[in-house]
């Protein structure tokens, strides 16, 4: 078995105590939620923190509730399984429940948390490897090296955002709330991402993600998630597609949104989705034609790279198929779109 490097483990029981610990330790400290991303990364020596602060004993970070303004508040430490199974999430934020239900496999879903998923490290086949392997390769920009093996001669890391929750949360206009010794900070998820594979999130050292809020969705809200992967379980997305349709009178589209992930460092919002679908009536021929048009547009806008394992040309070809199928599933109130 790969060994885990040695570190000190702190298990604070309140957010205040945790932020204090982080502030004192400085940027070398690491936060541990479910550990399903952190532990393999530690074993691969991608991080060598002196202190690891576990959030597992902080009860206030766990749970899903409905706020007075109708929004859903999900504690960062809520497990993926709990998110997938929650009836309010399933009804009002279907796309998130569907995405959560397809994350990793059953064991990992009961360990992994929504907060950890939002803050998942970007992934790359040249990076998520053991120290020995990366050394034999000669390392890469993201860690210990100077070259990129995906884009030859490239100066920028294009490791892929691989968290299934991210595109779903983007279509839901989620807001992320952080605590640190400086106080509370909130940011719309749309503005949270950076286009840099080395580190793709605007989070400051010492900040803890405490909760994620989802503004209430209108009654005509429909959404679905599509996930392309090789196996029917365990695998990270080769492509993740979140689709949202808010329907008004006569089931006409009032708002449409399509966000695709596992392409590059940040999830990609397909431009002009709303413009193309707005006003069309779900189920009509026109709707189906426009969905096809939007899917082709998505295909044009998305450029899967050889960053994550898998056949990139096939992933590219699948953008159109999964975009269309996921939009149709959202319209029909079905989904998730998955090969099993």
């Amino acid at each position, binding site marked *: 078995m790969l060994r885990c490097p040695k570190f000190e483990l702190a298990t604070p029981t309140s957010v205040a105590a945790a932020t204090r610990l982080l502030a004192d330790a400085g940027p070398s400290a690491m936060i541990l939620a479910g550990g399903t991303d952190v532990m393999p990364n530690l074993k691969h020596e991608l991080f060598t923190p002196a202190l690891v602060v576990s959030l597992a004993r902080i009860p206030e970070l766990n749970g899903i509730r409905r706020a007075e303004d109708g929004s859903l508040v999900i504690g960062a430490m809520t497990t993926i399984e709990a998110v997938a199974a929650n009836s309010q999430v399933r009804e009002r934020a279907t796309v998130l429940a569907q995405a959560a239900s397809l994350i990793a*496999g059953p064991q990992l879903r009961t360990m992994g948390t929504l907060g950890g998923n939002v803050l998942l490290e970007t992934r790359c086949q040249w990076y998520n490897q053991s120290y020995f392997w990366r050394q*034999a390769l000669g390392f890469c920009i993201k860690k210990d090296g100077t070259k990129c093996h995906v884009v030859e001669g490239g100066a920028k890391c294009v490791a892929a955002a691989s968290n299934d929750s991210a595109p779903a949360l983007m279509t839901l206009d989620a807001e992320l709330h952080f605590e640190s010794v400086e106080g509370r900070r909130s940011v719309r998820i749309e503005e949270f991402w950076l286009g840099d594979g080395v580190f793709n999130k605007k989070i400051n050292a010492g900040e803890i993600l405490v909760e994620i809020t989802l503004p209430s969705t209108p009654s005509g809200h429909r959404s679905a998630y599509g996930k392309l992967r090789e196996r029917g379980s365990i695998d990270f997305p080769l492509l993740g597609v979140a689709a949202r349709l808010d329907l008004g009178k006569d089931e006409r589209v009032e708002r449409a949104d399509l966000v695709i992930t596992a392409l590059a460092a940040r999830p990609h919002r397909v431009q002009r989705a709303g413009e193309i679908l707005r006003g069309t009536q779900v189920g009509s021929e026109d709707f189906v034609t426009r969905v096809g048009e939007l899917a082709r547009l998505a295909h044009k806008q998305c450029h899967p790279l050889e960053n994550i394992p898998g056949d990139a040309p*096939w992933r590219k070809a699948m953008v159109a198929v999964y975009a269309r199928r996921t939009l149709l599933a959202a319209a029909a109130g079905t989904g998730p779109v998955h090969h099993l």
Partner: protein
Amino acid sequence: MAARDNHGNTPPWGANFGVIGKPLRKVDGIAKATGAAIYTDDIQLPGMLHAKTLRSPHAHARVRSVDASAALALEGVHAVITGADMPIKYGVIPWTQDENALAVDRVRFIGDPVAAVAAVDEDTANAALKLIAVDYEVLHAFLDPFESLVRHEPAIHADRKEGNISKHVRLEFGEVDALAKSADVVLEDEYSFHGSTHAPIEPHCAVATFSADGLLTLWSATQITHYVHRALAQVLELPAQKIRVIQPCLGGAFGGKSDPFSLEFCVSKLAMVTGRPVKMLYTREEVFYAHRGRHPMFMKYRTAAQANGRITSVDAKILIDGGSYSSFGLVTTYYAGQLLTGPYDFPSYRFDSTRVFTNKPPCGPKRGHGSVQPRFAFEVQLDQLAERLKLDPIELRRVNFQGSQTRTVNGQRVTSNGFLECLDSVERASGWKKKRAKLPFGRGLGVAGSMYISGTNYPVYPNKMPQAGVQLKLDRSGVVTVFTGGNDIGQGSNSMCAYIVAEELGVPVEHVRVVAADTDLCPVDLGAYSSRVTFMVGNATIDACRKVRRQIVAAVAKKWAVDPGRVRLMPGVAIDLEDPAKALSTAEAFQLAEEEFDTLGATGSYNTPTLGGDYRGGSIGASPAYSFTAHVVEASVDTETGRIQVHDVWCAHDCGRALNPMLVAGQIEGSVYMGIAEALLEEHKVNRFGLHQGPSLLDYRLPTSVDTPELHALIVESLDPEGPYGAKEAGEGPLHSSIPALSNAIFDAVGIRMKHLPFTPGRVLELLREKDALEESKSAGAAARGQA
């Protein structure tokens, strides 16, 4: 073959079995299910050190020097060894020994072992590895087997006469070209098989102690204790009498634990140097480097036939990517040709196979060693032939059936052969006649057939001693202990021994203890490979049992003053067939025999008869009995995503006699799972840097339960005249034809031929596009003609 080796397929007292043929649980089932079973890594010894291996980061390099002084100076480090400590080469095949436990002057793939450290714990050993300085001179790396075929400098093995060619075999039987010329149809095509690996759940692990009086004991997760014993003696320059090798409970092997491995020598040497017990457990990544998995093959086949479907000529040319070492490669190169000559009869056959070295993890035997790849190519070609001749693919196979008690074109003797029953069985069970070529576009059925060996008469080192030996010890309490050199690797060989002893000696299975795979305690068996164990160890066990059985029956008969023919041993009791009221417990019967004949025990053994064609290599692939298999696969293709879904696989397998039908079904299901897995998902791939693409169980995609089709195991029993109670193999044969049957099902579903593995969705889409383009141009052509 001596009389002892052939016991007929029913015991002299009739086929009214009490144990054989019953779906009993495995003898180690409870221990495994409860976690009580002791695997190699469970062994903890006082003062035990932990060892780790330093591996080459270069695909091909000369090792100029290794400086371990800084590592040795680290607190907690007890020893560091390098190639200089064990310069003698080894290799499982005596003629091609080209491996060193640690690199002597050359590293040949990324992951090749260079040095080993023993330290107080794993972390210290790992830290020490980073302190070892190795000076490498990097050499040109061969990653493409076609390059190795023509370029020989720098030779991967400098002492080889033929440059980077590992082995070349060309054999020809009958009038291959003349018959092709006179045939009604000739098909020629190219096929390729990618690499795949075994991925057993238990990684390789070894523990060694070296006692003050010079006895080396090695516990190792090996599937061949005997060869490890011999290799240790050779490399460590110890007399074999000073070495004991034990295989504890094992967590899967599939051929991946057949060679002697670096870690076995390293822990032994480190134990000798430090005087402490030493353990090494490979990481999953290291298991991928140890590899010995399925060889990638590039294959050309030309099959000629008459209009009625009868095959007249088969011509094969195969390039085999061997990776960096020989391993079993000599055998692989032969098997790639030798094992194709059934279940069909054809009057002429030629194969020309070449195995080359490349700078990649060494390939070796994986379930269906050497013959899964050619079988894939050939069975797809047969489907193409059926298409060309407009014959039902099952019918085409029936037409060419070779029959039983026959000889193949390459001179192999075939005894029992249940292939027709296998075909009937899958045809019926799958609803073939109603479904094949009749399902809507996108869904289809495919068939394929195959054969495999039940061991061969080729021991890897030439000798005339038995290939399997068994010893029995009978206790007054009624317990029988059976000592066997056979390696239970999860296939159930220990259970098989217990069932036979229970059947023969009339004891309940739970009163049989099996002591296995311990070179000090057990007679030699050549190990768990080539699907030989049930056949050979089974026969040896019957042989031993018959000897003591005679004594027990004689003693009981004497006591009752009846003819020995009237004494019947049933589980737990001996009865008089004509007066069932007369009964003795097994223990009483044993005691009577012990009074009469002294301490009870017996040995038994098995050797194959003289087999094989009368030509060089003619005994490689010559088996005392062949198993036969037919598969039908039902699959569908999503023509938009290219994704293949396998719904059902029916596999009928002729295993001679199912000694335990539940275990046979388990082997069939496991084989089919593995075959479909490598067809669709698994790929052991080395990238452009010579690095394994994803040496982890996340990136090497084994199907999960939700990815696994419905598996239907159909057992066919042909009762072989020479197998134990008629049994043949069941562990490897049922993998073979699953892969071509899937390819053929895809053709039935959407009309494309998958000739290159793996069948990825990208490749499916590409072929679908090609097919559409072809059809369009055809219809455009037809339209143009119509207008003209």
